[in-house]
């Protein structure tokens, strides 16, 4: 037995991963090899110290701190439940945010518009979670959801969207591999499996779906979307509302929700290094203003 082989045994021994036979193999070698004995002692010492790192706790209750946010989310969810259909809330969102000179009513209407937009975005994103969460891996924990096939059967129109999402995810994975920052293996097998399921169910078999294409157009909800060139971010603005959201495409978490405004947000564009999102706000009189969102600081400013 050579020292290099014993090294792995010693590492696993530290993690209590050896069976009896492996343990005695290792011990036999360590008993005769002072170098390995020294290495084992060092490893054990380090491991003991790592185990004794202080179990830090937050200086205040995190749940108490986020409680207002949780209550807001809960309230928004209740409103979602009371809405009958997505179509209805969208078709009503335009008149709801019509201009008003009474500030308090205007605010209320804006909020309603925001909620409607949130409902639409929420339903789009999470109503079809498997479409958005298709991470190309069946072993993915987060993929603990209904099978893609079932969702496609429910909504064949969304097949395009799920493919373009897969494309973007694939692209992202390639980028990661090139940079050498990821050791995870490409999951082509399961992705192909998904593809086959989609095809079997009459989905578009073309892989050349343009990820920039608005996914909303195919599901009859008017909206503007734009994905950053690095595939990391997706901005969505539902037409007729003065708000937009930016989602992290890796896990579809909402990264940013804009302040409510009167008007329509449109014409998303990203700067070359994907740190700024440019957009246009058109008010009820058709006056356009140019804005930008700085992703790092999550601040909007007029250009």
């Amino acid at each position, binding site marked *: 037995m050579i020292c290099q082989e014993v090294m792995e045994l010693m590492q696993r021994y530290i993690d209590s991963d050896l069976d009896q036979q492996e343990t005695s193999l290792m011990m036999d070698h360590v008993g005769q090899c002072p170098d390995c004995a020294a290495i084992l002692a*060092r490893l054990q010492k380090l491991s003991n110290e790592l185990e004794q790192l202080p*179990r830090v706790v937050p200086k205040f209750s995190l*749940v108490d701190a*986020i409680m207002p946010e949780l209550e807001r989310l809960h309230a928004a969810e209740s409103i979602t439940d009371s809405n009958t259909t997505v179509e209805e809330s969208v078709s009503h969102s335009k008149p709801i945010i019509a201009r008003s000179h009474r500030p308090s009513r205007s605010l209320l209407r804006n909020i309603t518009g925001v909620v409607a937009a949130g409902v639409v975005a929420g339903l789009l994103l999470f109503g079809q979670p498997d479409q958005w969460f298709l991470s190309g891996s069946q072993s993915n*924990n987060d993929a603990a959801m209904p099978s893609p096939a079932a969702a496609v059967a429910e909504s064949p129109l969304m097949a395009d969207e799920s493919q373009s999402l897969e494309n973007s995810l694939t692209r992202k994975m390639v980028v990661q591999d090139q940079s050498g920052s990821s050791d*995870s293996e490409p999951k082509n097998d399961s992705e192909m499996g998904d593809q086959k399921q989609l095809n079997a169910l009459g989905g578009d078999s073309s892989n050349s779906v343009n990820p920039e294409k608005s996914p909303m157009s195919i599901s009859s909800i008017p909206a503007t979307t734009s994905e950053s060139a690095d595939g990391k971010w997706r901005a969505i603005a539902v037409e007729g509302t003065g708000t937009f959201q930016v989602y992290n495409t890796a896990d579809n978490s909402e990264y940013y929700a804009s302040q409510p405004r009167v008007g329509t947000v449109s014409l998303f564009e990203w700067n070359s290094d994907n740190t700024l999102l440019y957009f246009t706000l058109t008010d009820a009189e058709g006056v356009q203003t140019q804005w930008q969102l700085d992703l790092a600081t999550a601040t909007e400013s007029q250009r």
Partner: protein
Amino acid sequence: MVEPALIKAAQAGDQDALVALLREIENQVYRTAYYLLNNEQDALDASQDALIRIYTKINSYEEKAQFRTWVQRIVTNICIDKFRRKKPSVSIDEHDMIFQSGDNVETEVLSAYAAEEIREAIGKLPEHHRTVVVLRYLQDFSYNEIADSLNLPLNTVKSYLFRARQQLQILLHDYQKGGVRG
């Protein structure tokens, strides 16, 4: 451990159960964020983001996964995102890390590293290695649990952990040589 009944109630829409569940996990979420980000304020922000995400995504958790690995997956993803935005480059080239045998073994075995130094050394590891170390030592996860949390193959988890320990020894050894410690 979070009771399965509490998770079920939370998923069924019981708001109190969901909040109680978050209270049970807030310390473990924070601990990971703290050791991954190496900064109290960033850790507070990241763990609050993680708890909100868990709140909104509770229905995407399925029993076939362990709840705590699912929770750790969420918090590690948020932290990795956060430090990628902050520090685009990795501070140590892992390929330069060659294991050093036997030198100065006696002095090292005799001295104990301060927790602070170990924490700083963890902060210098490449992100995957750091994450594996934190889950192994601050969450007491097994190889399999780490693999589930990070969606990595088992062998990759082992090689990250083994290399991380070797790197930590070198980093801590450097501290000592640099005169930080006697």
